[in-house]
């Protein structure tokens, strides 16, 4: 496990790339350093900073470890956890989507061809619970530990095995679960920060996406073909 303090510092060195707002995002951490204290976030990398609505502690630890592997802290962004991805998925799973709203849930349930899409009776909340349990079973069998206890190189290897369809979960499709995890990470990282991820619009700064209000009728020609850096604005900024 990497030293959280070092990880924080290395991120701060790179924060200039992402602009001042990203540095401001860490003001809590900076203040903590200045007074010789550490914030809860800095102390527990991988732990969500917001209270959980639905995830169990072990589920949150699993997802934090997955998201920190997908999105490690580096010169481009803080770690997935510090970007709020666990908070993002916790809120999604606790809400209407997580409990299966807008899903057709009548039986009979059959496996079907892969092209026939999602055919399980599980809601997304249930699917994550079952998937995380299956992944940790497999991780214990393969590495002797739960996924979140693995060192970063082993986490990387384990996710590659799942991505490659080679992880043999008991009675559960590991590749499909991997894709669900991956999609949730991308959603949390790139969605509007109103959903709890993409804290401080860090991914938008990373790619130079200006966000809102996106009214370019008078700028479409002026900006055409030019490098344009507009400080991104989110829904909350304009609310």
């Amino acid at each position, binding site marked *: 496990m990497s030293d959280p303090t070092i990880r924080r510092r290395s991120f701060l060195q790179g924060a200039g790339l992402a602009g001042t707002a990203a540095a401001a995002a860490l003001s809590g951490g900076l203040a903590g350093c200045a007074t010789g204290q550490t914030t809860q976030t800095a102390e527990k990398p991988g732990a969500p900073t917001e209270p959980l609505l639905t995830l169990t502690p072990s589920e949150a630890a699993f997802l934090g470890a997955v998201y920190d592997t997908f999105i490690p802290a580096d010169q481009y962004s803080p770690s997935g956890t510090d970007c709020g991805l666990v908070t993002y998925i916790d809120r999604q799973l606790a809400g209407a989507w997580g409990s299966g709203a807008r899903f057709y849930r009548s039986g009979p349930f059959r496996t079907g061809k892969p*092209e*026939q899409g999602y055919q399980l009776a599980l809601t997304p909340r249930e699917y994550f619970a079952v998937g995380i349990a299956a992944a940790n079973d497999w991780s214990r069998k393969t590495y002797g530990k739960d996924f979140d206890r693995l060192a970063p190189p082993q986490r990387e290897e384990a996710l590659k095995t799942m991505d490659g369809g080679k992880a043999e979960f008991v009675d559960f499709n590991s590749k499909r679960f991997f894709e669900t995890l991956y999609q949730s990470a991308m959603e949390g990282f790139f969605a509007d920060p109103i959903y709890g991820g993409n804290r401080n619009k860090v991914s938008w700064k990373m*790619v*130079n996406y200006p966000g809102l209000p996106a009214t370019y009728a008078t700028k479409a020609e002026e900006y055409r073909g*030019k490098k344009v850096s507009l400080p991104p604005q989110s829904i909350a900024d304009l609310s």
Partner: protein
Amino acid sequence: MAKTMKHVDAVCVGVGWAGSIMARELTKAGLTVVGLERGAFRTPGENFVLPTVRDELKYRLRLDAMLDTSIETVTARHNPDEVALPMRRWETYAMGDGLGGNGLHWNGITWRFSPSEFVLRSHLTQRYGKNAIPAEMTIQDWGVTYDDLEPYYDKFEKLCGVSGKAGNLKGQIVEGGNPFEGPRSSEYPNKPLILSQGGIIFMKAAKSLGYKPFPTPASNSSAPYTNPEGLTIGQCQYCGHCEFFGCEANAKASPNVCLLPVLLRDPKFELRTDAYVARLDYDKRAKKVKGVVYIDRRTGEEVTQPADLVILTAYPFNNVLLLRLAGIGEPYDPHTGKGVVGKNYCYQTVGGVTFFIEDEINPWIGTGTSAASIDEFQADNFDHGGLGFFGGGYICVSGSGGRPIQVRAVPPGTPRWGTAWKAATAQWYNHNLTLTTHGCQYAHRANYLDLDPTYRDAIGRPLMRQTFNYRDNDHKMSAYITAKAAEIAKATGAKIVANPQPRTGNFGATNGQATHHTGGAIMGTNPRSSVVNRYLQNWQASNLFVVGGSAYPQNAGHNPTGTIGALSYWSAHAITTQYLKSPGPLVHA
């Protein structure tokens, strides 16, 4: 308890483009019309406003403006001998509901179909010989020609304030427009949208290969515009949030902006939202549809609406479902090829190629349409002799927005995550483009719609069952035109051109592309091969008209909405000028 409403002259089932146009034209002719819409009342100015309209997760990923699959969905299988399973959530396409239908949250790409598409079987037979069309390709002529529809295309374009550049004005080829389009009676009502950087790159490369690129016709208004209904459409803001989103600038044409404000003021029209039409009241002996039965979602009551004229203006799946439940017309049987209801269900065959380039693309400045297109490989605009397939599509450049959950290509070989992935994402987000090949999907004997034997919707009706796969013609066509797109990509001076991605393999419920479904209640020249005649009037029940994409005998490479608008006006014209004078069949079988 069931209740019966006061009799009206006409009832429209579904209030999207087709329903709004039919209702408007019929009320203008003096008829009393009720529009039934199963979804909610909504307006762009109220339901899609800044800042919350710019929410990619809500509208694009969670499909908030689309039909709730827990109420109704579609089952899918590839072949008639397989078991179909429900799409438990929209993973490849999504049906709309709510006032304005998909017309409220479409991209706004507004084409006319190529003239040869309307006489497809005759045209191909004439050019390639009578044995050229494979037996399983069940394409047919529409019974209506481009020239018949031209005035109605024109009318729809003026309603929407389409931005574009004519390429063929009354037979004269005009520089800068689409030289392959059918003759137009007038120029587009709005000048083209501002060309994006991607559009400039595409046009230059396409011209270097001898093609004739032109601005893609768009119902995203390039300037404020007042339509013939007296309604004003705003100026497109190039916000890059079109498809699946409503337009807060009122700049994207929709029934809600272009027609409904007039209709809702008209005492001859009554809109009922949350009115979920369950079935038709069909008198088989008299061959008349006496009205429709719907569930008022606000009260739970079953309500009968009697009417002299019943007009189905819903999505193709729903038009076909209502016909099947009523027992109107013979269901199509893929084994014998007999029957018509559900026949020739078609989709769209989309491919593409992504490339990476030094230019600053600024993809977040976008409109609903691609900036520019070429039509050299559309329809039968090129010689198909020896190619082993028919049809084609247009090639266009991406430009509908840089929404970052979904639009952030990285070069081939980039890891899927980690610092290297972030580095590539940061490096290339602003430096990639995709050329899309938007191809036709011609009818195949084994692609059709019928009633699912197992799965039911929320009000107990069978779900529509889609038996569909991409067939040999689709694969070959897509491979051919996508290879042409790759040549253009290479001619841009791109640093990296990714492998072309033509449509290959099976239809996948998880493999997203267009929401362009057609057929199932197709038009034609006789009742043995079609559900409706050239005026979209049902062959069995002459007081029933079935209007919309369901009438297409096969789907062209161009997007379907322009033709839905034209057919709606064409059908309404036939009703008001012919049918009302002498109710009965407009074409004798």
